[in-house]
């Protein structure tokens, strides 16, 4: 509570300072799932957004103009997401939108922002939001800051290929995130000489996956790949240990999170997964140009804003930061005219973000390559980079 008031006060102070600095703020709408099932993802994302905006404003804003952040709650629900986005566009008349945080919410608002010509940077995991053609419609105005699922899949498959793990069993959560991962896992397997021997699924709220895992174990694959977010991944890990399955377990890029180790406990030992550099940033070589950016981010997050007491830094933490900065940089270059702003975002080159080095193009509205990820392994309850 006190922390909350403190943040509020800081916010107020910043607001007054920036007001004194210059009138006419730039409005940016940001909406995430603050309630509903995805609240645990949406809330920290919102906090990071606020942090990034305060930093920019404190440093003088964009070309002397402060950013005014308009917040909204997408309630983890597509209809509500559409309503909030409509409000941003028509009532608040924002220059750009950050969010939402879930793939299906992103898909629900995609057509609207495309029609309304509002540059939008989403923080969703799934790729369809930045794909075009057929039912997916156009993708001119929508960008996303987290890695594509395919990037994570390729990073993982490269590792499997290198270590000669060819027979892979999949256990996938029946959520949109899981299904998206599954699509790419199946599509990219041949490219890396991998065969998928089992295809199991589970609900995001299920308590027990031993049934699926014993079936998988019976097929004796070389590796088990689990694709999910949230606590279900930890249950898979625990069930694997319970059944004494020695086959290595790989999780997806949605799980690198201190919470995962907390929830899975000792069972997480040895689990591997693709992650952003944020997860083991202190182990990065000092020559890595990202290290400095991450260090600053972590300092603000942990020491200045103390967000880590409730939401310790995880692999997603930087996405909203990067989204804001990409937009801010583009406004700095091109102003708030929607078409110009969009073009500027699309031309973002070499932005060094928390989540990686962004190089956007007309074809790639994400801009992160495989070099933005690392494989990490849990050793002694710590995230370790796999060289």
């Amino acid at each position, binding site marked *: 509570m006190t922390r909350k008031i403190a943040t509020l006060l800081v916010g107020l102070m910043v607001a007054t300072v920036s007001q004194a600095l210059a009138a006419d703020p730039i409005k940016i709408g940001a909406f995430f799932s603050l309630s509903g099932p995805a609240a645990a993802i949406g809330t920290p994302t919102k906090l990071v957004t606020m942090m990034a905006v305060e930093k920019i404003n404190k440093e003088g804003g964009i070309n002397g103009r402060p950013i005014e952040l308009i917040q909204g709650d997408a309630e983890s629900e597509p209809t509500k997401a559409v309503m909030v986005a409509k409000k941003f566009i028509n009532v608040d008349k924002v220059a750009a939108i950050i969010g939402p945080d879930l793939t299906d919410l992103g898909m629900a608002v995609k057509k609207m922002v495309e029609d309304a010509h509002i540059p939008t940077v989403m923080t969703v995991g799934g790729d369809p939001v930045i794909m075009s053609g057929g039912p997916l419609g156009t993708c001119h105005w929508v960008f996303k800051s987290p890695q594509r699922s395919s990037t994570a899949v390729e990073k993982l498959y490269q590792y499997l290929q290198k270590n000669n793990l060819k027979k892979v069993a999949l256990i996938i959560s029946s959520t*949109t995130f899981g299904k998206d991962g599954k699509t790419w896992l199946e599509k990219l397997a041949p490219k890396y000489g991998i065969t998928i021997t089992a295809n199991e699924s589970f609900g995001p709220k299920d308590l027990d996956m031993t049934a699926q895992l014993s079936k998988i174990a019976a097929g004796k694959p070389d590796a088990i790949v689990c694709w999910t977010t949230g606590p279900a991944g930890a249950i898979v890990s625990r069930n694997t240990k319970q059944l004494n399955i020695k086959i290595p377990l790989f999780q997806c890029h949605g799980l690198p999170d201190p919470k995962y180790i907390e929830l899975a406990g000792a069972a997480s030992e040895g689990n591997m997964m693709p992650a952003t550099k944020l997860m083991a940033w202190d182990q990065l070589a000092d020559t890595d140009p990202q290290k400095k950016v991450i260090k600053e981010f972590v300092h603000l997050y942990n020491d200045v804003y103390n967000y880590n007491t409730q939401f310790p830094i995880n692999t997603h933490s930087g996405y909203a930061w990067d989204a804001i900065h990409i937009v801010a940089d583009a406004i700095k270059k091109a102003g708030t005219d929607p078409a110009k702003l969009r073009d500027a975002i699309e031309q973002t080159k070499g932005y060094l973000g928390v989540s990686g080095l962004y190089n956007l193009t007309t074809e790639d509205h994400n801009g992160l390559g495989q070099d933005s990820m690392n494989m990490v392994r849990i050793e002694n309850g710590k995230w370790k980079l796999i060289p």
Partner: protein
Amino acid sequence: MKHYLGLLVLAGVIIVFPLSVSNPYYLNVANIIGLNSIVVAGLNLLIGYAGQISLGHAAFYGLGAYFSGILTVTYQVNPIPAMLLAMLATGLIALLIGIPTLKLHGHYLVMATVGFNLIVNIIILQWDSVTGSPSGFPGIPNLKIGALVFDTDQKMYYLIWGLSFLIIILSLNLVRSRVGRGLRALHGSEPAASSLGVQTARYKVKVFVISTMFASLAGSLYAYYLTFISPKTFDIFFSIELVTMVIAGGIGNVWGALLGTVFFTTLPSVLDVFDEYKDIFYGLILVVILIFLPQGVLVGIKEYFFARKRSSDKDIQADDGGRVFSRGSSAAFCPPLGRISPDRTDDGVILSVRDVSINFGGIMALAQVSLDLFEGQVTALIGPNGAGKTTMINVVSGIHRPTEGSISFFGQEVKGKRSYYLAGLGLTRTFQNNQTFSNMTVLENVMVGLHAKTGKEFISSMFHLPGTGREEKAIEQRAWEVLRFFRLEDKGHWSASALSFGEQKRVEMARALAPNPRLILLDEPVAGLNMTETDEIAKLICDIRNQGISVLLVEHDMNLVMGISDRVVVLNYGRKIAEGRPQEIQKDEAVLAAYLGSVD
């Protein structure tokens, strides 16, 4: 009249709103409200009028959306036929689900619909080859009628609210029709409704199907409006929200449901100002409304502003008991019979019960009882408590099926036939415990009585097809006639629940008499009435008989029984112990022993 005014106001608001508020965001909110209002209108018919709760309507909403989406995108069907096909398919699924489900009661029904909702949700989520890309079903085109493309919030606004308005009219038409009265009657008292010819089981299924088709329509519109659908929208939490709108708005009230929809659709956005505390306020508001305004916000507001006088001013006149010998009720003896000659014997038998037995959990409630009722006579069935009188009435009126024996009505075997069927043949009844439909006016109560005599069903009623008005007028006219006969005409527009107990008894008789039955069963028509009221009922029964309608009377008031019956049948322990003229019965030793007990 009230409804026309309401519709006029609604139409005005619908038209004026987009003119005064042109911002697409508010139109968008209004559109979501409109879509919900269509689902809620159907749900309100189901909950408020048929008395059935479904926590699975989000699934039907979803079926509409997905059927339309898949038909349009995958199979290139035009939106309008796709929408109609979706409604049809949803209705068909609802029919298949509804027939077994609506046999369930209470919580079982709730669970069955929850289960259905979960199943539909999982199938939509998992069957991705059909239901679209993993993260939902994108790329649904806007609705198009000829050259008119509904691609803006404003155009959709007029379409959605036009349809919502239409559906509200359809709901009001239905509610105020023969069918609607049947439904409300069935909600008020299922056995009573059935005894007046309402096919209760069939009606429940029909309303269920209609409500799901409304939901399907709204779902289709949703799909064409958002052009993207995903499973999360159609989960059981949305089902719960929809039912909340009905209940907190006002169960069984079309306007209340609309108000509930507006309120609970906008509430979450309004509560956004409370940030993290939003859910707490939402829950609190819901709880407070339901605790203090259990009949819903609309009725609650009305009662607040037009504080009604409570019946507490009815005073009780306590007089001394003491050794005052009461006069007893002075039931007038029936005047000579009218056009039907009472001399007829065998050929005058209209109902013949032969050797009927029935047992409940091992107890013989009726054992080999035979009984004849004659045309134009009042036959009384008497006996001490637990003798089986009410059981006999229930057997004759089709509520219980006898274990053995036969029953014929005008020569037709009717054993095991349902009450509504018997009502069609001209056999109606009243009930021991008042079963007036307290949710309806006196006039409407009597109009339900004419259900079996009339025939306009759901479609005619909803669309007010030609002939419906005429039938309705005829029903009303006849109902007024009957009310005049029962001297209730000045209270025709009163709520039945506002009447005194005695008047309610008369309403029940009027209701059963309205279709001009050939036989009427009266189960304790004067129980709980005072002497004046009893006299009145006695006269009425005589009048009924004088019109040629036969009466089977179960009653404890012996003055009445002995005064107006042509014949008395006495039951004791489920057996017939005597039968004859009143004078004979009063002297019958077996009867005396049964009633007064034995001295030794």
